[in-house]
């Protein structure tokens, strides 16, 4: 049943792509997020659907008459260099077999992120990408949100659509991404034109959907019990206060809401979130600190990084305070328990980049991502006072993308998602917005010159 309608939807999407080839690009983004082939039991999972759709998207760019408007940005160049460098570290990797496996999906994510901004030449295309990302993610988020309400979820127990712990279907990753996308949901609800927010007939439905979807996004960290998600939510909340006119009212309201929500939270969630404070007794947190220490020592000898999956060679040793039979520290001199672990993952994108791609890779990664925060701030400031209909949407979009990026950079502190394809699509959207606006400014300053020629010669300027 599920296979049939997923196939039908995909078939229709591809048919639309034949009419407007840019839609192939959107369909690729959809496939990358939802991974319908993973949800399928027959047919779809045997077709190289990503490859077919990417070929369509590339063909769409080649036949696109307006592609001369496309610009290549510094951050795209950084991604290109990172791609080449990651290719090099894969060849020379400490763990060649495992590295090759990760390279298999990383290069696709980077190539698509480099390609995507070239297609974003119009405002509507940028909006269409934002809507596709949000609605594709909605398939996972609505599912996870509803299951959390009905069952309460659990750490590693919440099954979103399919029992698969990879990609966006992993608890900590979906928690971070779900929170990062909330600002984009609200931008679409306030400034969208595909589902027109300016139309009073659409506005109430859009508001209700945005509110419900945001609530579902907030429920994902509750359902997956990923502590990272809670931290991301707190960061997003602080960011939202930045431009709030009634800060104290917002803080008070949120505190009341949080207090009111406590009785509804599953007790296992409250217990797990409590371990944020008592990290000394938490094995997962202690492992992180030990692995980060190992990575730092490792890059002293290997400053170029050890290639993908280099962490698999680590052996970490750390000590945990012993607790009594009930799991509580009794305060007595009960000593410490030594724990020895091997092959522990980085649990941080920063250390993931440092260990795998060395100092150079980390630097490129920081330029790509922190550079996004900076560029969006530049755009937000430049357009914040724009009141015209054709410019009012720009500053809020830059702000939404900036907030999403900051949430990602926060989540990245605790989760190894340095190459998460969804985030690279957000980065691509930032680059697309940036180059689109540069082009607009250039063409706006060009018009008077054309008019001058017309005035001087009495004839229209040659095309």
């Amino acid at each position: 049943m599920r296979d049939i309608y997923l196939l039908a939807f995909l078939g229709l999407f591809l048919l639309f792509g034949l009419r407007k080839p840019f839609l192939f690009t959107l369909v690729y983004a959809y496939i990358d997020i939802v991974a319908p082939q993973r949800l399928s039991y027959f047919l779809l999972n045997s077709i190289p659907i990503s490859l077919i759709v990417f070929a369509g998207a590339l063909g769409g760019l080649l036949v696109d008459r307006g592609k001369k408007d496309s610009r290549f940005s510094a951050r795209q160049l950084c991604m290109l260099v990172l791609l080449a460098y990651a290719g090099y570290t894969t060849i020379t990797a400490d763990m060649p077999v495992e590295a090759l496996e990760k390279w298999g999906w990383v290069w696709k994510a980077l190539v698509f992120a480099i390609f995507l901004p070239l297609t974003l030449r119009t405002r509507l295309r940028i909006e269409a990408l934002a809507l596709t990302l949000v609605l594709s993610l909605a398939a996972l988020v609505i599912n996870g949100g509803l299951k959390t309400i009905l069952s309460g979820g659990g750490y590693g127990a919440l099954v979103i659509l399919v029992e698969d712990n990879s990609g966006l279907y992993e608890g900590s990753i979906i928690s971070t991404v779900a929170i990062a996308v909330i600002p984009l949901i609200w931008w679409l609800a306030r400034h969208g034109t595909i589902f027109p927010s300016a139309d009073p007939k659409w506005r109430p439905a859009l508001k209700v959907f945005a509110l419900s979807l945001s609530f579902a996004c907030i429920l994902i960290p509750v359902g997956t019990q990923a502590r990272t998600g809670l931290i991301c939510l707190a960061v997003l909340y602080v960011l939202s206060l930045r431009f709030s006119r009634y800060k104290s009212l917002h803080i008070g309201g949120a505190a009341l809401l949080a207090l009111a929500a406590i009785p509804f939270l599953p007790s296992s969630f409250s217990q797990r979130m409590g371990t944020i404070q008592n990290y000394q007794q938490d094995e997962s947190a202690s492992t992180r600190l030990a692995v980060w220490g190992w990575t730092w020592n490792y890059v002293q000898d290997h400053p170029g990084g050890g290639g993908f999956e280099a962490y698999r060679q680590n052996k970490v040793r750390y000590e945990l305070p012993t607790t009594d039979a009930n799991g509580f520290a009794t305060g007595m001199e009960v000593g410490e328990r030594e724990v020895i672990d091997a092959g522990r993952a980085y649990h941080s994108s920063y250390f993931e980049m440092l260990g795998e791609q060395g100092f150079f890779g980390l630097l490129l990664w920081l330029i790509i991502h922190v550079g996004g925060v900076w560029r969006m701030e530049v755009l937000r400031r430049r357009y914040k006072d724009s009141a015209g209909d054709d410019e009012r949407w720009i500053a809020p979009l830059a702000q939404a993308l900036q907030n999403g990026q900051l949430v990602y950079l926060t989540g990245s502190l605790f989760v190894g998602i340095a190459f998460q394809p969804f985030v690279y699509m957000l980065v691509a959207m930032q680059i697309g917005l940036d180059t689109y606006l540069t082009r607009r400014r250039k063409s706006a300053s060009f018009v008077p010159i054309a008019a001058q020629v017309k005035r001087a010669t009495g004839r229209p300027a040659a095309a």
Partner: protein
Amino acid sequence: MIDHFSLLLSHGLLLLAFVRLLRRPDLDDESAQVQPAARARATAAVSTPAPEPVAAPARARPGKG
């Protein structure tokens, strides 16, 4: 049941979004853009007897896409 609901809702909305995009010439060519304010006015003005020419979404031009 929940799986079907979340998949059908999200995919249905994606389908609707794509259908609406097919009818927007400004997807490929910004100069064909219908001014947002004009579009909002046109769609909102149910009581206005004579809608402006921009009221109907323009069809894709032949040869585009």
